[in-house]
């Protein structure tokens, strides 16, 4: 195996990992604040993919340009879902919350089947088959590069929002100390709904970006939900930077496993990594340990 083969594989893995990270970010944001494990994670992302598909088919809009619109629509969806449905079961045991979100996931899958049918659907944009040459031996595929740049930009915006904006700080305050946030007069229910909305918006954006790389069909979601769980557990449940780091780690390790070992071992390698992290650092690479 020569150096450039490995370098190309790692570069592709890095770009793919950033997109994985963006999709996992939605899960991490929601869990980090509301402490609800979103089992409809993949399904909401697939909604974003279908939205970008419709925009492309109807208006010829590049999925990258659909990102703000998809994020806005899914923000409203997420906000409404949290404030009207999920908030009502927040006091119930965890397993009942899981079941509620699993039920929502099933409804989204069936709705997608009803509207779009079961076939995988792809888009063909002008740069689908194009690549960038960096030097003589490094080839970076255009769609993946654009998707990764979008993922970094969206993640940066999100991290900036949580770090510097008043609302972002208020949301973090809710996450850190629920009771304290109530005592100082923060509208916790509104902030929770906002958080779920932001998580869903993040998934909408990830969906648009992902449509550049893969075909969309209603059954795509469970695989991505599982992948997001693996990423956030490796990165640290609730940690936003952890989600990005976890995504990059999974993307690059899968690429490496495929090249060095056997491609059909890729998933086994990711899950091996998950087991290793759970055994050696259960809080995840960037997560805080609970004492």
């Amino acid at each position, binding site marked *: *195996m*020569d150096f450039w*083969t490995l370098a*190309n*594989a790692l570069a*592709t*893995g890095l770009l*793919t990992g950033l997109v994985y990270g963006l999709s996992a970010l939605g899960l991490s944001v929601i869990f980090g604040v509301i402490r609800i494990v979103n089992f409809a994670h993949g399904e909401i992302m697939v909604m974003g993919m279908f939205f970008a598909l419709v925009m492309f088919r109807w208006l010829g809009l590049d999925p990258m340009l659909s990102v703000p619109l998809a994020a806005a629509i899914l923000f409203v969806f997420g906000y409404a879902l949290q404030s009207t449905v999920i908030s009502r079961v927040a006091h119930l045991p965890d397993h009942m919350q899981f079941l509620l979100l699993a039920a929502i996931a099933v409804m989204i899958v069936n709705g997608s*089947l009803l509207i779009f049918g*079961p*076939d*995988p659907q*792809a888009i*063909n944009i002008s740069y*689908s*088959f*194009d*690549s960038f040459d960096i030097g003589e031996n490094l*080839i970076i*595929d*255009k769609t*993946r590069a654009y998707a990764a740049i979008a993922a970094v930009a969206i993640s940066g915006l999100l991290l900036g929002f949580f770090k510097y904006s008043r609302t972002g700080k208020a949301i973090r305050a809710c996450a850190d100390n629920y009771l304290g946030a109530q005592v100082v007069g923060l509208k916790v229910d509104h902030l929770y709904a906002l958080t779920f909305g932001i998580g869903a918006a993040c998934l909408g954006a990830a969906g648009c970006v992902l449509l550049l*790389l*893969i*075909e969309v*069909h*209603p*059954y795509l979601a469970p*695989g991505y939900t599982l*992948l997001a769980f693996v990423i956030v557990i490796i990165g640290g449940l609730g940690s936003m930077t952890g989600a990005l780091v976890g995504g990059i780690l999974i993307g690059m390790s*899968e*690429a490496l496993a*495929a*090249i060095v070992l*056997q*491609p*059909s071992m*890729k*998933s086994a390698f990711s899950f091996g990594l998950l087991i290793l992290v759970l055994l050696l650092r259960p809080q995840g690479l960037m997560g805080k340990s609970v004492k």
Partner: protein
Amino acid sequence: MTDKVNKTKSEKTTGSIISRRQFTAGVAAVGAAASVGPWYIKNARAAEPLKVGVLLPRSGGQAQIGIDCQRGADAALPILKDLGYPELKFMLADFETKVDVARTQTAKLIDEGAHLVVGAFDSGATMAAAQVCEQRNIPLVVNIAAVPKLTGMGLKWVFRNFPHGPMIVKDAFVNQKALFKMTGHTPKTVTLMHVNDTFGSSLAGALFKLAPRFKMPYKIVEKISYDPYGRDLSAEVRKAKASKGEALWVVSRLNDAIMMTKEMVKQRFEPMGILSTGPGWYDQEYMKATGKFGDDVISLVPWHDSNKPLSKTLEAYFAKHHPDRQVNPNHTYTFEGIMVAADAYKRAGSTDAKALQAALRTTNITNNVTTAERITFDKNGQNPHVKNSAVQNRGGKNLVILPQSAAVAKPIWPMRPWKKRG
């Protein structure tokens, strides 16, 4: 007292509804009915349509191919009716591209009254369906599935009119040698990429087992198996490129064929040619998704003989009902699967499973569409006459290039560089 008892008995006997004469007449009538009954019942059954369970992947990763197979089944109904075959009733089932669902859906079809099952395109799913049919004593007519053990483990209710792995590989070797000789370009090394499912693994296994026997002019330098549900194939294609095989041999399906082609173009991986022994690469959806980059791929697959009268009828049907599609093996083998079922029903004159099984064993159809000279089944339920062709994609069309007797075009080999297309 005794007299009274006797009298009562006598009265009872005399007063009974059935006399000795009536009893004798009754027995005779029952005997006559019994002798005429089976004939009568048999004909009554023949009047009812044969319920054919059509098991296909209509959703999930193989949905497009499953839906394409159904087009072949749908074409069979009017065409077979015109040929004088009895009426059939379809019971459609979807196994969602999942082997476990194939098992439950087959059982459900049988529970709901299917007299015979046709399916299931995917080798793993067909194996699962075969086990259920074997347990429930219901015939399974396989439209497409190449796993060898399907007709190699003594199943009594399975009938396959499709080549198994070693048959496909054997014909592929023969056609490859003819291609290299014809064009004067022989690769010295080949990289094999195969989907890691029942179909892909069994075909790849057969390929390695049979290669030495055929003394192929090349060496297989790398065997790359990949996950059928893989999210992207960039690393797989990169590995294939790094292996430096002069030609690429693929055993895949539709979605992975599209992903693979995109990656090959983006990574500038340009082998001497792409040889496929599987579905996907000849598909209309593949050519639509890849455009000019889908050209020049050669599929070594079971194809139909355009010169046969029934092929012309099927092509005319597709030209009328699906003008945007060409007839492909998904259509032809599903069509023939339904035809085999209808033919067995016609000769059995009954929907009884054992009668259908016996009729299937004596199948001998010569008016068919594929390159097989006839459809018969050996003691294992395999049609030994099925054959493969070499078909090349050109401008969105599939052109037969081998065997030369059925060729409609000369092969382009080596394939044209990506940058020099259109």
